């Protein structure tokens, strides 16, 4: 180990400090040195990750208390927390700066903080403080003070525990260097220690002077536009919570980055960085470097934001989607849209790569807190009213909520409930298309692919040449076309990678026609780093393929070289930059590492696993294929003790819920051949996770079930039984032993899966020992679980499907009459599920289930049994008859087709059958309502009567969606006061339940009594002074209904002004519209 002596702190050291990567360790110093004490107090104020103070004289404590009033650095590091007692049970805010007093506090009031604890207690306190410091994973430790040896022993001990950091000593007495090195050299593997050999006070003055200038750059001035079209600037930093700042998770586009640049303004390095995914810079965007095949995506997004801002659309927030093949430029397009939006005065919030998505509460809270500054900046008194607020754009990349559709929908729904004006822009994997519920307005902005044609390449070449020419790197058109021919997706090319290859080519890494995989492999093999580092990179790659980042704390203990992982991986980044290794600091987790692109990670894994000699040199056993190789890396990660740490819990949960889930849609079919190994890995996850997470247990149970559903996986019968029994236990454990929470799996989903597991067990029993009593018991359990799920939500499509399956599974064991009854009841569930789902495959699956049910109605003696049921007055007899009418109309086509395109004539015929029923139970009435709507969409009176009848059944809870339809129908029938009350109740319930509601087209407008012509209403404007503009509508019994004056061609209406209007309905109630939009 060498000591490098300096007289001043380098920029690199200060960067570590300012970026909160450093820990300060203050050694003991003479108490009488008041000047040093004051200086140290000021040094402590800077944004360290943590501070440890060896001895804390009264003066120092007093100085820290005094300086605590200065909040200059608070936005950067949160508040100071002086900790003098044992911190083993201490929880600090996400952003905060702990100051650990290692020997306690003189004159402490709390005995635990005392400087004179019994020796063992004092020692324990010290150990726990030092251990706490290790959790923050500093990049560098600054040891400041005249006695650096104070810190050395503790640092050596931390090193032994796997904590690695660079060391910088600030001490005017250079003669202590030998002693320090002698203690450090045998224990730690650093090649150098930096020693700033000047007086501590001088060093502190230097640092304070240089960092104070940097403080100014911490403001976050962004541009925003109001509906009036005027733009202003506001410092959004003031809206951040010091202890939980949104900027931990999100990026913004400051005003200073918005000014246009020309191609010549970009340096060659900036152009190269853009193509090699270096640090995010907005300059290439300002210069127009990103190439867009067409501007429509940007234009559509801006139009949507404009509509939101000005309220010219009553459709509310939108989910904007960009589908992009891996590496085809989805991220770049999303950033381009964000940049264009920022230029126009909308406020983009870009969630950082590989960072957790902040909750809707955090996002909405930030938007709300910003309103204060926005109001002041735009000269308003107080915060702006809703209609005057700016519009926000929340940008999520492909890895955010990857394969976690439910979380994406929850974020969106919760943001809608917050009432802010926003759109979410999400980059989507084209292979994981979400069928968004109809309540969510999805606008697909683009679908970017690698397969581009000849003309596009010419255009692309001409565009990029403008940026390459100033650096002498432009290419002739023939070169662009030759490159395209080599790399366009084809039967003989690699996985879709035209754009990736282009990036490599433009960065100068790749020659024309060279294989990216081979090139990457060579880079990796030639990198001059140790075997352990290469092994780690392959583990990072295995997770990167799954778009997951590797927490540094999950890497193995590094022995060669014996240095911090960060330094080791930084060395690898320098020697092989094209591997695209990136590091992100994630709150609550520390550093995470990933390969910038999943395609590159896949190439690397594929190349390495095939190179058997190289694998041997890395001590990696052979694998049959690259998937097995990846799985072995994931297994190695999961076997580390740190896998149980709470900080890595999201990654561990995602193993069960998506990465290793044995499911084509939400998991990965790639791991199917390895299902036994996959389950072994998940079974090996520490019990701490399984005892606390419903989601982990639930998704593991789903994977186990999946294996038993067909012979496809080749599980033996005994394996199937074992899997199903384990799945049952996991779901029961989750229901009975783990409390429900909004962030975890719901009872609804667990009961649904439980019912299906019992159905699978019943099928197993039927095909093996077929013991009747066991079968009956299992079907009864399935029935119980189904009923529990239905109680949780009777309108969930999957639960309704389970209810139908449950009935049909029991049908063979029932007597003839009961079988018909079960089939008719099952059909009523299927029909409801059908009306809730629009995806073709799902509808076809439900159609097949319906065909199974109808087959019972067509069985030889069925007609007699149906008549018998009708004679008994059973609703299900009539429902069976009605279904036969529908089924007869599907001849020559699938039943799902007949259900999807239910002809009014058929619906009417089926309805007339039901009307003959003498006793009406709620399934029959609900079926009648659906048929009534299908046969006569505008028969509002009859529809209302049926819904009223439905809501009068004691055992039936009318759903929120049905309540909404009833509320509109009340208005349609002139019962406006009841309608207004119903809407008020729906608004309350929808907010509490977090539901988004959908209004069918037939109920969008208030119609005249003919049910066909929109009613022209008389309204009188009400002047509230503040709040949303509204008017009293005579035809709605004087109800006050909101409107947008701009839609009526005016900035504002005069108080009492009368006007004519239409009334439209939305999920939250009526809304006034001008009469110029057609009467039909």
């Amino acid at each position, binding site marked *: 180990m060498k000591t490098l002596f300096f007289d001043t702190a380098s920029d690199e050291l200060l960067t570590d400090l300012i970026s909160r990567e450093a820990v300060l360790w203050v050694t003991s110093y003479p108490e009488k040195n008041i000047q040093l004490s004051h200086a140290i107090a000021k040094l402590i104020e800077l944004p360290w990750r943590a501070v440890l103070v060896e001895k804390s004289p009264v003066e120092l404590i007093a100085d820290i208390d005094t300086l605590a009033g200065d909040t200059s650095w608070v936005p950067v590091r949160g508040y100071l927390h002086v900790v003098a007692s044992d911190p083993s049970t201490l929880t600090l805010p996400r952003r905060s700066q702990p100051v650990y007093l290692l020997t306690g506090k003189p004159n402490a009031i709390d005995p635990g903080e005392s400087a004179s604890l019994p020796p063992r207690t004092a020692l324990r306190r010290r150990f726990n403080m030092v251990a706490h410091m290790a959790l923050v994973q500093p990049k560098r430790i600054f040891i400041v003070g005249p006695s650096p040896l104070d810190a050395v022993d503790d640092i050596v001990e931390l090193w032994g525990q796997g904590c690695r950091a660079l060391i910088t000593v600030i001490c005017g007495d250079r003669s202590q260097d030998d002693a320090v090195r002698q203690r450090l050299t045998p224990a730690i593997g650093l090649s150098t220690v930096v020693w700033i050999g000047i007086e501590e006070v001088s060093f502190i003055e230097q640092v304070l002077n240089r960092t104070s200038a940097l403080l100014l750059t911490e403001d976050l001035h962004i541009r925003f536009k109001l509906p009036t079209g005027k733009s202003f600037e506001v410092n959004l930093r003031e809206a951040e919570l010091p202890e939980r700042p949104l900027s931990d998770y999100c990026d913004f586009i400051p005003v200073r980055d918005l000014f246009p640049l020309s191609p010549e303004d970009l340096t060659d390095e900036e152009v190269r960085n853009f193509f090699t995914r270096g640090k995010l810079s907005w300059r290439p965007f300002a210069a127009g470097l990103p190439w867009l095949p067409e501007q429509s995506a940007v234009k559509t997004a801006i139009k949507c934001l404009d509509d939101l801002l000005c309220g010219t659309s009553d459709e509310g927030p939108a989910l904007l989607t960009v589908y992009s093949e891996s590496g085809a430029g989805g991220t770049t397009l999303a950033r381009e849209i964000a940049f264009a939006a920022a230029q126009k005065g909308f406020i983009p919030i870009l969630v950082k790569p590989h960072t957790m998505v902040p909750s809707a509460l955090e996002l909405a809270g930030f938007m709300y807190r910003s309103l204060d500054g926005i109001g002041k900046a735009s000269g308003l008194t107080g915060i702006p009213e809703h209609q005057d607020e700016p519009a926000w754009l929340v940008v999520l990349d492909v890895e955010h909520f990857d394969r976690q559709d439910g979380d994406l929908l929850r974020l969106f729904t919760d943001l809608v409930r917050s009432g802010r004006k926003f759109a979410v822009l999400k980059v989507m994997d084209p292979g994981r*298309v979400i069928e968004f519920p109809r309540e969510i307005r999805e606008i697909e902005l683009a679908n970017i*692919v690698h397969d581009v044609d000849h003309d596009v390449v010419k255009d692309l070449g001409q565009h990029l040449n403008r940026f390459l020419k100033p650096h002498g790197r432009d290419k002739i058109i023939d070169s662009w076309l030759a490159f395209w021919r080599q790399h366009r997706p084809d039967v003989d090319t690699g996985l879709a990678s035209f754009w990736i290859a282009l990036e490599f080519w433009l960065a100068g890494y790749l020659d024309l026609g060279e294989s990216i995989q081979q090139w990457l492999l060579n880079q990796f093999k030639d990198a001059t780093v140790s075997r352990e580092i290469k092994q780690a990179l392959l583990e990072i790659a295995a997770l990167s393929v799954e778009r997951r980042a590797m927490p540094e704390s999950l890497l193995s203990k590094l022995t060669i070289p014996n240095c911090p992982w960060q330094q080791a991986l930084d060395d690898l980044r320098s020697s092989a930059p094209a591997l695209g290794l990136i590091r992100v600091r994630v709150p609550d987790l520390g550093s995470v590492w990933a390969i910038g692109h999943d395609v590159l990670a896949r190439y690397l894994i594929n190349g390495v696993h095939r190179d058997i000699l190289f694998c041997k040199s890395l001590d990696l056993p052979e694998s049959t294929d690259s998937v097995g190789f990846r799985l072995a890396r994931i297994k190695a990660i999961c076997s580390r003790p740190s896998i149980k740490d709470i900080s890595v819990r999201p990654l561990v949960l995602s193993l069960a819920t998506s990465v290793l889930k044995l499911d*084509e849609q939400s998991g990965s*079919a*790639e791991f199917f051949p390895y299902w036994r190994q996959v389950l072994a890995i998940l079974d090996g996850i520490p019990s701490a996770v399984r005892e606390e997470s419903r989601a982990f247990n639930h998704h593991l149970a789903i994977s186990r079930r999946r294996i038993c559903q067909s012979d496809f996986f080749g599980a033996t019968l005994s394996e199937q039984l074992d899997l199903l029994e384990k799945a049952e236990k996991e779901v029961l454990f989750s229901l009975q032993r783990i409390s429900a929470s909004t962030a975890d799996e719901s009872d609804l989903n667990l009961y649904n899966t439980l019912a299906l597991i019992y159905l699978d067990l019943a099928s197993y029993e039927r095909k093996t020992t077929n013991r009747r009593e066991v079968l009956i018991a299992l079907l009864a359990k399935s029935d119980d679980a189904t009923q529990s799920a239905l109680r949780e939500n009777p309108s969930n499509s999957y639960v309704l499907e389970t209810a139908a399956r449950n009935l049909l599974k029991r049908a063979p064991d029932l007597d003839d009459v009961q079988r018909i009854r079960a089939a008719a009841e099952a059909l009523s569930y299927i029909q409801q599920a059908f009306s809730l789902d629009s995806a*073709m495959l799902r509808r*076809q699956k439900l159609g097949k289930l319906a065909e199974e049910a109808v087959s019972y109605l067509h069985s030889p003696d069925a007609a007699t049994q149906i008549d018998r049921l009708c004679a008994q007055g059973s609703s299900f007899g009539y429902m069976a008859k009605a279904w036969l009418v529908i089924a007869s109309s599907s001849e020559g086509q699938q039943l799902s087709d007949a259900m999807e395109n239910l002809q009014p004539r058929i619906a009417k015929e089926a309805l007339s059958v039901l009307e003959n029923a003498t006793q009406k139970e709620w399934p029959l009435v609900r079926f009648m309502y659906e048929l009534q709507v299908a046969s006569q969409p505008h028969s509002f009176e009859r529809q209302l009567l049926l819904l009223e009848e439905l809501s009068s059944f004691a055992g039936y809870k009318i759903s929120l969606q049905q309540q909404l339809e009833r509320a509109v129908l009340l208005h349609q029938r002139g019962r406006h006061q009841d309608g207004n009350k119903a809407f008020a109740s729906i608004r309350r319930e929808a907010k509490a339940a977090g539901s988004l509601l959908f209004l069918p087209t037939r109920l969008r407008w208030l119609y005249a009594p003919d049910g066909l012509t929109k009613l022209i209403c008389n309204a009188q404007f009400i002047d509230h002074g503040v709040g949303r503009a509204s008017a009293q509508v005579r035809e709605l019994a004087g109800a006050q209904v909101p409107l947008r004056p701009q839609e009526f061609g005016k900035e504002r209406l005069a108080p009492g002004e009368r006007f004519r209007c239409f009334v439209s309905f939305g999920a939250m109630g009526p809304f006034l519209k001008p009469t110029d939009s057609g009467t039909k």
Partner: protein
Amino acid sequence: MSADWYASRKGWKLCKANLMVEGNLDVRYFLTANDLYRAKHQKSLVGLDFSIFSAGSGDAGGTYGILDEFPTLFKLVGLDLDGNGRRKYSVGVLLDNDRNGQRAASALPKQNRSLHLWSQIFLLHRILPCRTRDSLPLGKHVESENGKYQGLQCEIEDLLAEYFIDLFMSENPRHKSVKLKVDDGFHVSWSDDAKHGLANFAGQYGSVEDFSKIIETLKSIRFYFGLPPDGVSH
């Protein structure tokens, strides 16, 4: 390996290029066409570099089977790389040009946005031109060249020679079917029984000439996959 494993479990043999079709009868027609072609030209259109298999049998086939199976196979195949980082296989799907086929052609891209009509999704037409492999112009060529059929639906049986169909109908009057005719194209709605009967009949008596349109279809699809359209020698 995952794609191979998946395919083998489903009973599919993977070649360099692969085509999933709706049913086993489609496979039978294509294989018969290949046998006839090979006997005449000593080249194979199917079997060496090109594999054709159905999504499933009976209820598991048809557009339901395609929607259920094809996206998963497509995804797995896209990730299976050889030693040079090249895809080992490519896959496409051929759908009947009837209502269900057209709906499936629209539904597939909703399951995977990387799937595009005339790129991986093909609709059976009487004429499949080989002027380009780029999906947009190809779609336009298909549309214009088949315009004379005025949207007449097309299943594989409609590609057999017309006199051959007439012969089958006259010899099997129990399979009552109506033949719709537009220009030189025709469409017959067969019952399931009749379809099987016709397939047997064609297998027994069909000649290269009777199968010429099916052979041309095979050549076109091979062209779209980037394979030599006229086949490969053993």
